[in-house]
C-alpha cells in the first residue's frame, strides 16, 4: 500500500533520513497500519462535520500587553551552538 519510494519521499517531507536497508521494513509495517486505517471507508460520513477538538471554544484572545519572557541566556542554555545571543545552525541552502 505504501512503497519503498513513498517511504523515502515521506521521510524527506518529515526530515527523517531513511537508510536504504530500513525502507522495506517501514514500507511493510506502515502498509499494515494503513490497511487497518482503510476500514474507515465503510463509515458513512455524508453531512458529518469534522471535530478538530472537543473544547467548546472558538477564538481565544488576550489583551496586547507586554509580559516578561525568559532571559536570553536561559533560552540559549540548552545548546553549545550559539553566537552573539543567537542559535547557530548550518546554512539552509
Amino acid at each position, binding site marked *: 500500500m*505504501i512503497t519503498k519510494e*513513498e*517511504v523515502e519521499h*515521506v*521521510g*524527506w*517531507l*518529515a*526530515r*527523517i*533520513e*531513511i*537508510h536504504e536497508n530500513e525502507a522495506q521494513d*517501514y514500507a511493510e*509495517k*506502515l502498509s*499494515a*497500519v*494503513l490497511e*487497518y*486505517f482503510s*476500514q*474507515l*471507508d*465503510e*463509515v458513512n*460520513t455524508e453531512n*458529518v*462535520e*469534522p*471535530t*478538530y*477538538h*472537543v*473544547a467548546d*471554544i472558538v477564538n*481565544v484572545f*488576550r489583551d496586547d500587553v507586554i509580559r516578561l519572557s*525568559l532571559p536570553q541566556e*536561559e*533560552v540559549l*542554555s*540548552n*545548546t553549545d*551552538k550559539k553566537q552573539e545571543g543567537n*542559535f547557530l*545552525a*548550518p*546554512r*539552509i*541552502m
Partner: protein
Amino acid sequence: MAGWASISQIKEKIAEKSAEEVTASYLERIKKSKINAYTTVCEGAIEKAQEIDDKGHNGPLAGIPIAIKDNISTKGIYTTCSSKILQGYVPPYDAHIVERLKDAGAIILGKTNMDEFAMGTSTESSFYGPTLNPWDKERVPGGSSGGSAAVVAAGEAPVSIGSDTGGSVRCPAAFCGVVGLKPTYGTISRYGLISYANSLEQIGPLATCVSDIATLMDIIAGYDSRDSTSVKTEMVYKDALVDDVSGMKIGVPEEYFGEGIDPAVENAVWDAIQFFEELGASWEQTSLPHTSYALAAYYIIAMSEASSNLARFDGTRYGYRSEGDNWHVMASRTRAEGFGPEVKRRILLGTYALSAGYHDKYYLKALKVRTLVKKDFDIAFKKFDCLMTPTMPTPAFRIGEKVEDPLALYLADVNTVPINLAGVPSISLPCGFTDGLPIGLQIIGKHFDETTILKAAYSFEQNTDHHTRRPQEMA
C-alpha cells in the same frame, strides 16, 4: 517509612517525624528499586523537604513526595520524554501543574519513565529501557505513563502525575493496580506538557486511592491563560468523595466486551457492575455503535498531530544534534538518530496522512468519524449517569510480546481511545485480580462531570478491598 501510603498517612508521618525523613526514606527505596521506573531522581528533594521542616508550609501537600512523568517540564530538572533526542535537556521553566504542585508544598522525587514521547502502551519504547511491572517483572507496566503507575504500585512514591492521550494514565493504572484519572479535555492546563497529540491529551493524577486523586485534582485543575484550550471551572473535587451510588444509572456498552477480551477480566468487571447494583445503583446494557472505528480514527488523528508537534525537534535549539553540510541534512540525521522506531513510524504515517492526495482520505475522514464517536457518548449520557467497561481487555502482557508488531500493540488501546476522541473524563480503579495480576474497571462520565465518576469510584473502594492488595517486594 516509604512504601504504599495515602497523602493523609504521609501527613501523619511528617507530623510524627519530619518531611526530610519521609523524603529520605523514599529516595532510599528508589535506590534499591529493580523496576527502572525513574529516568531522573532528584537528590535535591532532601533540601526542599528540610526547607519545609525549617520554615513550615501551610500548603495542602506540604512535604508530600510526588513523581512526575518525564514529558512534563520541570525547571532545572531533566525532561527527556524518555527520548535520545531530548537527552540532557533541562527546561528553563515549570509546567503549569508543576508550579501548582510546588506552591502546594509537594516535593518532586523524580521524573518517571514512559514510552518515548508518550507513544505506546507498554513503556518498552523508552530510550532508557522498559519499566517492569511491580506485580510481575516479566510483564509490562502498561503505558505510556508506565513509570508513574509503577512507582505508586511499588511504593516508590505515594502519588504521581501522568498524561493520557489515548489511555496513557488509565492503561498503566489498570496494569499496575492503582487509581488513575483522565480529566475532561480542558480541565488541566497543558502548558509545559511536551505535546504529542494536542487535541486529545490531558494531564492526570495516579494514586493508591480515589481520595488522593481528588486532593491532587483540587490542586492541579483550573484555568491557565497560557493554554488556549484551558476551561474555567469551579469544581471542588473533594466534595465528590461520598459513599452513595443510590439511584445512579450505569450504562454498560457491549462493544467494550468484544473480541479478544480475557474471560477473567470480563468476569471481574461484571462482578463490579453487579456490586454497584447491590450498593443501590442500576445498570443496563447499551451500545456505542461507532466504537469499532474509534481506534483507527484515533491513530490517524494522533499521528497527524504528532507529525506537526514533533517538527520542533530538529537539533537546532536543544537536545541531540547530528552533523550535516546544511540544515536539512543535519535535521534529518538528528531526527533519524534521535527518535526511536515507533516515534519515526508515527511521524511518517502522520506526515503521509496529511500529505497532498491523502488528507481527505485519512485525516479529514478520521475527524468526521470522531464526530460520530462523540455523538455516541452524547446519546448514551442522555440516559445514563456514567458508563462502566474494562479499562484494558487483558491483564498486563509480557515484555517483548508485541514489540515487533505495532498494530497488535495499537489494538490493546481499544477501550481507552474513544474517551480521548470524545474528550470526556474517565477513571480506572482496581476491581480484581487474575493469576496475581490486577484488573482495572473504567468508569466514564459526562463532560466536566468528574463528580459522578469520582463518587462511583470512591463508593466502590469504600466497600471492597481490591485496592488494599500490594505486590510482593521484588527479589
